[in-house]
């Protein structure tokens, strides 16, 4: 390749990476502005953050038809990654607004600039995760997200629990990163490449001799790293501690966006590397590794551990943490199905899960800030003191269970249909998932029961209110939870169209 061609290639690649670059430039801009901005007007830094995210959205909207690999196959830009990038930017926007109403964070408003800097970095990392088509790129992106997460979790630096959970998170995360990079090195050792598509070619080549045991161990180590990102059992132990200690908006953000990024990456990894022929539907997996069974076991373990452990939780944030582990288990069903409808169902699930789970965390934050407690016992009778907050909470809970009329039902419906379409082979998987949904109804509705059916300890307690903008944001979460339950075909069709555009 001569120099001219190289320059042209680099320029084209750079142009295609516009949304990521915008976020990266925005990150530096916020960093510098934060340095020079007076401490009293620091909250205006959030405006800059929203501006950057808004520009990223506009830039994304121009990439709906792109299908390319840039920088020597390091990053794929296709409908699939664009779908996820939308999710990351939208959830960053929503979590950003949510942060403005958080008491915990606003006590530290002095340093709100740093908060948004780290958040921007995390968005950048997730965008790279969704597109990464090379093991090294995958690792770098995942590390960027992890490092940002550590900082955000321990963001309340005067708070002991926040710090403790941050440290635990770092240790756990570094451990899993270490194992993952070990797995990557093993894969590189046996296939001689880091690019996902080249790996696929090697695995398909009958002449190449791959030791299945080494391959299994290597892939499982990589899976450990990915499983840690999506909080799938048995790599989930960090999640409850981290969520409970983190500021609530951060916990909310962690429970949706990095999880979606982890799934995006996991699916691209398996779909690109381990398929024989990538036909439209009904993929043929490579015989060398039975990763479908591994994922099925992980899926069942994850949803069962998440739901069952959630039963006993008294702290709402911790309960929601286990709930988000359980949902990762459901979503994994979509990953292992080897079908377009399964992947589309997974994407649909992640998209609305973002809305309803952010919503549930948001109400938790508002209520927790006002009663100064996240313990369920202190929430008794709150429904009548704060109907405007508690009624949407019930909507979110109903959706998390999957009650018809909410989007949670639609998502589970699509997922189960996709599972059953694969034939009776997966019937038991659907059955376990349904049983799990039943268990989950118990702890979700326990919250509703405590809010509305239990008497408040203090009969003369004041009504609890929230400022009007905060309530408006609440409806931004609550309305789609209902509307998407009835009118979901556009979102699903978009997910389906994106699936068809996955490039290696």
């Amino acid at each position, binding site marked *: 390749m001569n120099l001219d061609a190289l320059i042209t290639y680099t320029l084209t690649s750079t142009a295609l990476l516009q949304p990521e670059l915008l976020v990266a430039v925005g990150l530096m801009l916020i960093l510098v502005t934060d340095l020079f901005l007076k401490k009293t007007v620091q909250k205006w830094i959030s405006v800059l953050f929203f501006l950057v995210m808004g520009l990223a959205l506009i830039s994304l909207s121009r990439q709906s038809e792109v299908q390319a690999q840039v920088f020597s196959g390091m990053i794929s830009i296709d409908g699939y990654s664009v779908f996820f990038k939308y999710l990351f930017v939208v959830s960053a926007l929503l979590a950003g607004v949510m942060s403005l109403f958080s008491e915990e964070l606003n006590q530290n408003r002095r340093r709100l600039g740093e908060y948004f800097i780290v958040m921007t970095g995390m968005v950048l990392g997730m965008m790279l995760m969704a597109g990464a088509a090379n093991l090294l790129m995958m690792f770098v992106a995942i590390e960027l997200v992890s490092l940002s997460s550590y900082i955000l979790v321990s963001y309340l630096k005067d708070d002991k629990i926040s710090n403790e959970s941050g440290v635990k998170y770092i240790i756990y995360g570094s451990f899993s990163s270490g194992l993952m990079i070990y797995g990557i090195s093993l894969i590189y050792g046996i296939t001689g490449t880091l690019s996902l598509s080249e790996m696929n070619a090697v695995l398909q080549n009958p002449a190449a001799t791959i030791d299945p045991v080494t391959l299994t161990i290597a892939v499982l180590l990589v899976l450990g790293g990915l499983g840690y990102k999506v909080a799938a059992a048995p790599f989930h132990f960090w999640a409850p501690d981290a969520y409970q200690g983190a500021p609530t908006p951060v916990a909310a953000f962690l429970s949706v966006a990095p999880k979606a990024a982890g799934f995006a990456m996991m699916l691209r990894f398996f779909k690109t590397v381990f398929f024989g022929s990538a036909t439209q539907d009904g993929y043929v997996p490579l015989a060398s590794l039975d990763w479908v069974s*591994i994922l099925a076991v992980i899926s069942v373990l994850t949803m069962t551990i998440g739901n069952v452990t959630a039963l006993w939780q008294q702290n709402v944030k911790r309960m929601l943490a286990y709930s988000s582990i359980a949902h990762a288990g459901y979503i994994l069903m979509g990953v292992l199905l080897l079908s377009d409808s399964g992947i589309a169902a997974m994407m649909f699930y992640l998209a609305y899960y973002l809305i309803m789970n952010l919503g549930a965390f948001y109400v938790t934050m508002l209520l927790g800030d006002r009663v100064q407690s996240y313990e369920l016992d202190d929430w008794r009778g709150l429904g009548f003191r704060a109907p405007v907050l508690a009624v949407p909470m019930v909507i979110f809970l109903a959706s998390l269970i999957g009650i018809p009329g909410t989007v949670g039902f639609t998502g589970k419906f699509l997922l189960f249909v996709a599972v059953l379409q694969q034939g009776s082979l997966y019937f038991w998987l659907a059955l376990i998932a349904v049983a799990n949904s039943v268990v989950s109804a118990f702890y979700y509705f326990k919250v509703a029961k405590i809010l509305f059916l239990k008497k408040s300890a203090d009969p003369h307690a004041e009504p609890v209110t929230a400022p009007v903008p905060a309530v408006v944001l609440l409806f931004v979460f609550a309305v789609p939870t209902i509307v998407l339950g009835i009118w979901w075909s556009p979102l699903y069709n978009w997910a389906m169209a994106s699936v068809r555009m996955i490039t290696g």
Partner: protein
Amino acid sequence: MTLDLFSYVILLPVAGFLVNGLLGLFNLAGWRSEARKPVVGWLASAAILVPFLILLQIFIGMAAQDKGFVTLYNWLTIETLQVNISYQVDSLSVLMGLMVTGIGFLIHVYSIGYMKHDPGFWRFFVYLNLFIFSMLNLIFADNLMLLFLGWEGVGLCSYLLIGFWYQHAFANDAAIKAFVMNRIGDFAFLIGMFLLFTSAGSLNFDAINQSVGALDPTTLFLAGLFLFIGATGKSAQIPLYTWLPDAMAGPTPVSALIHAATMVTAGVYMVARLSPLFSASPELMVVIAVIGGLTAFLAATIGLFQNDIKKVLAYSTVSQLGYMFLAAGVGAFPVAIFHVFTHAFFKACLFLGSGSVIHAMHEEQDIRNMGGLRKYLPQTYLTFFIATLALAGFPLTAGFFSKDEILFRTFASGNYLLWGLALFSALLTAVYMMRLTSLTFYGRERFDAGHKHPHESPALMTLPLWVLAAGALTVGFLGLPGVVSHSNWITEWLSPAVITAEVHATHTTEWILIGLGSVIALTGLFAGWKLYTTGLETVTRLKSGLSGLYNLVYNKYFVDELYDRLVVGPYTRLSESVLAKIENRFFYPVFGWTSSAVSGFADTLRYIQTGYTPVYLTLFIIGVIGLISLILFI
């Protein structure tokens, strides 16, 4: 035909429902306050008026054979089952839609006056808008599934509105009764739907109606029968009619809109929509005609001795719905719809008039305590009287044309027994309606005129009365009998959407029948007037002379008691024994064990989450090794 604006017909009522509902629910912007009442009321009314105007515009621009579809989106697809949120605009649905939105709007306006002092004002209008939304879905649906959604929706609104004054136990009981009765019908409706789906392979009306010829006659009969049982629930026919009279516990505008003009006609509409299906099974048509004729007769006799002004009207509604099914049963589906249309005007007018009377009499509903109201409520009286004439079939009023057409078609179809029954019911109708008018408006005051000062209702309430009364006088001319005019507009208009049986009868027969119908109406009206103004002693003597028969009819043939004995009692006892023997002895312990097993498991599991990072990391490694061994050794 342009359908660009059609989606607003569906969306505006639901928008009204959402705006008033959310603002009212959270009491935002003072939405429940006295000052906001006009805003709430007029907003809700506008959400119905605009759809009416859009439909009017579509109606003006369309020809009878025009048919358009508006698909909002595909809700779900499971193999061959497609559920589309898709609407069908044709002559039948537009006519019904105009009626529902037009009369609905008038009743909304009336309610602004009627409900003025009710603290649940906003809630009332929220339910009304939701009702109109559901009703429009029912009417415009192009498939049975969406129709069922509307069907259930109107049932829900009916329940909510009957029990609107939920502080009163009787209102709650009536609401539950209506809901349960409807659910029984809905269950049958669902079975009918499943049968059709498995045999015809689709739930779309067009597909069903086209596949009728290919269906097995038994399946066809059963599917139609189950759908019709659903219709007897919604449209208050034998055996599921007893909820409608009790439904009068709701506010009077509700009785006018839901339990007279619109919702209860849904069954007739459904039968007309599937007219090719129903008419393909002669046995089924006989069932429909007989049930319709019997209901018309039975309800007319009960109406004769009721003393609650609204109960009389309720039984009259049941009876008139019977006429509609009779028409459908003899193959005159367009005539059934014609009667739906005319009935909507005069029955809504009668109910709103009764509301005006009740309003003036301070919630008094017993006609034995009324009388002589003509001079206190001149406008109410006049409109009520016009509507009475129309319902009784006084020549040239709306009811005259539609009812005579039903009688004529019944006669022409050769069902002379049913025709005789219907003719006799027409006589009874004229008598009980004139009895109602006489006892309410004529004679001397049977209340303490010194204490009660009945006063005419405000213009907001009387204006809708006049519009409806004008309709009761004129809309009949849309369906002139064949002997008078060669073009019967309504039959021709509906002909592309609804089929109709051939008529074999001479002009002479038709003239004789028209004459007979007029004589019957006039006789009945005269008898009712004479007996219940000056002949009250005769009535008393007749009552004591025929006390056995009188008691039987007065107590509504003891049907409620019969149902209590036959269904409610055994059912309650069954439930109790199931609770004691199965639930408490079997399910309760089993679920108890299951739940303690799960929570015990959970209790163990939660100790894994120790909070110590080394433990977590060990478990991580154990997990990886476990998975590896799972793959390699199993």
